[in-house]
């Protein structure tokens, strides 16, 4: 089947892109001012530690050997030790990655679905007061400065009203309790998740809604919509079964294109809400000049974006038979 071939092709492309990113990082690292050894060396390290590190990274060997070692270290999951935590970077990353994926995927999926659903409805009532209100409101929302709206929502929903916790992903006092059930844990995480999720959705939904609305207005002019009406279908059937599936396709494309942008927003949201994700870790590592952690965090974020892109492509192909067959 064609779909499999497409997935295969896209996966290869993604591998190539990722390889280029890895290489780019290596080049940047060596272009940076200062001695690579000193960049990778922490003040607390003993001379033996430094020697071992130099050996491991091949910093005393020619550049291309260093490059090969760099790639080898990457594929072995050896990213060095974080200066700040004093622990292997890979441990920190594997702790942070699930939190990011949880926030990022739920936010993206929710925002896209809400945007498609609302856009579909308001496009159908085009020109009415509801349409005007929702359009202007989503225009406003989509240009809100994300960190600011995050601060505001913490101030209002968490500080003033007290509906949600101020920050973090879990309540440590609860989690230390013995025999804490799965559902109690899940509820606690969900409670922490809601506010950052809401913030991300406010900003992203507006943009998707506007795309869905205009795409829907274009689709309504298509001939198959007239066919569907002529067949005697109800307006709701025409809208949901004939117009919406076609109109949603550009929204999916734009979800794919805005993934990088969403990752920026995700990192900012994680930072403001102290959500223990990989984006916050990157920003944190950058502030502390924790090179190994910063580099590795970036690599994994790039990987998340690329994989998410692949998933969006597959979803598009699944929804548009013209690609699939």
């Amino acid at each position, binding site marked *: 089947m064609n779909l499999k071939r497409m997935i295969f092709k896209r996966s290869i492309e993604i591998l190539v*892109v990722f390889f*280029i*990113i890895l290489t780019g*990082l290596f080049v*940047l*690292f060596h*272009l*940076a*001012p200062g001695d690579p050894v000193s960049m990778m060396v922490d003040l607390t390290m003993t001379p033996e530690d430094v020697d071992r590190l130099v050996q491991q990274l091949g910093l005393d060997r020619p550049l291309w050997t260093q490059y090969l070692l760099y790639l080898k270290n990457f594929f072995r999951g050896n990213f060095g030790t974080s200066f700040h935590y004093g622990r292997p970077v890979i441990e920190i990353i594997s702790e942070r990655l699930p939190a990011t994926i949880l926030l990022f995927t739920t936010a993206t999926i929710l925002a896209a679905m809400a945007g498609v659903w609302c856009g579909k409805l308001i496009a159908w009532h085009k020109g009415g007061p509801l349409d005007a209100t929702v359009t202007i409101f989503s*225009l*406003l929302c*989509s*240009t*809100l*400065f*994300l*960190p*600011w*709206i995050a*601060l*505001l929502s*913490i*101030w209002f929903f968490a*500080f003033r009203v007290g509906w949600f916790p101020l920050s973090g992903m879990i309540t440590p006092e609860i989690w230390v309790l013995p025999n804490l059930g799965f559902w109690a844990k899940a509820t606690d995480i969900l409670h922490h998740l809601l506010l950052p999720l809401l913030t991300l959705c406010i900003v992203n939904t507006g943009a998707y809604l506007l795309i869905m609305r205009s795409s829907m207005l274009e689709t309504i*002019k298509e001939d198959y919509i007239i066919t569907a009406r002529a067949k005697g279908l109800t307006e709701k059937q025409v809208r949901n079964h004939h117009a919406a599936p076609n109109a949603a396709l550009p929204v999916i494309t734009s979800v794919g*294109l805005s*993934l*990088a*942008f969403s*990752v*920026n927003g995700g*990192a*900012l949201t994680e*930072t*403001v809400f102290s959500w223990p994700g990989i*984006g916050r870790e*990157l*920003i944190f*590592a*950058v*502030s502390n*000049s924790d*090179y190994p952690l*910063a*580099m590795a965090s*970036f690599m994994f*974020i*790039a990987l998340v*974006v*690329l994989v998410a*892109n692949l998933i969006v492509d597959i979803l598009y192909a699944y929804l548009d038979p013209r690609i699939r067959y």
Partner: protein
Amino acid sequence: MQSKTETGKHERHSYRAKLLIDAWRLFHDNLIGRIGVCLLIVFGLMALLSYIPPHVDPMYHPMTGVDPEISYASPPSTRHWLGTDNIGRDILSQLLTGARVAFLVGISSAFISIVIGTLIGIVAAYWGKMLDGLLMRFADMVMVMPSLLVILLLSVLFGQLSIWTIVILIALFRWPAVARVIRSQTLSLKQRPFIDMARVAGASHLRIIFRHILPNVLPMALLYMTFRITSAIIVEAALSFLGFGDPNTVSWGMMLQWVWKTGHMFQAPYWLLPPGLCISFMTLSFYMMGRAMEEVLDPRLRRVRNAKHAAA
């Protein structure tokens, strides 16, 4: 012969002038565009006014001016219309300066990115084949890069970034969308007979590009510039918010960082609200202007409602 080309030129000029007038009229009729322009004028005035406060009294200097009597965050008063920050600097004058910085970052970075994007788009479409494939793959790759995070990474490797480095870096990550649009426009232009005619007449590649293609893709490039401005402003604000802005300038993002990092976000709404509102409304106004321009430039969007059926 001479006079004939002269009149041709004249006609073309008057035709262009008419197009411009039509475009302006359409733009003027567009409510969203009008709101956008009005908001922008307000921000423009803010940027201009930013030069005044430091002349009134040195304590109104946005960076170095400190009120000798106030060394804590104070709410709005007659002395400080929008209050002061935690070390007694005037929030209003910071806000005004922030408008200037936002314009500077937004416009210069957007300009650079559309220059890069337009050139790459035209080159890719004009020469096609391998080069086109390579350039567009490259564009795709840059497009999936989370620009904010890459710039952060660069700042850890290369140290503190100045405002101009930030401007250029933002531009370097924001050209692919422009390149794609300009490429497809150039591709359709290439099909038109006048390009072939120019080629047959012996025009050089450079002449064809600059005389015949560039003027035709320029409106689209300008449209994309407004969208690039919004994203440049947002990225700069986010960088400053995270504490990686140029420490020698005040920007709105930096003001938000100060509120946040000094722990005043729960106590000082007069400090938290203005910079965020300004960033949001400035991006909104450029975005609105862009949408309105899009409607003017893209006849597809402008099409009279149901014209298709009315004609049938």
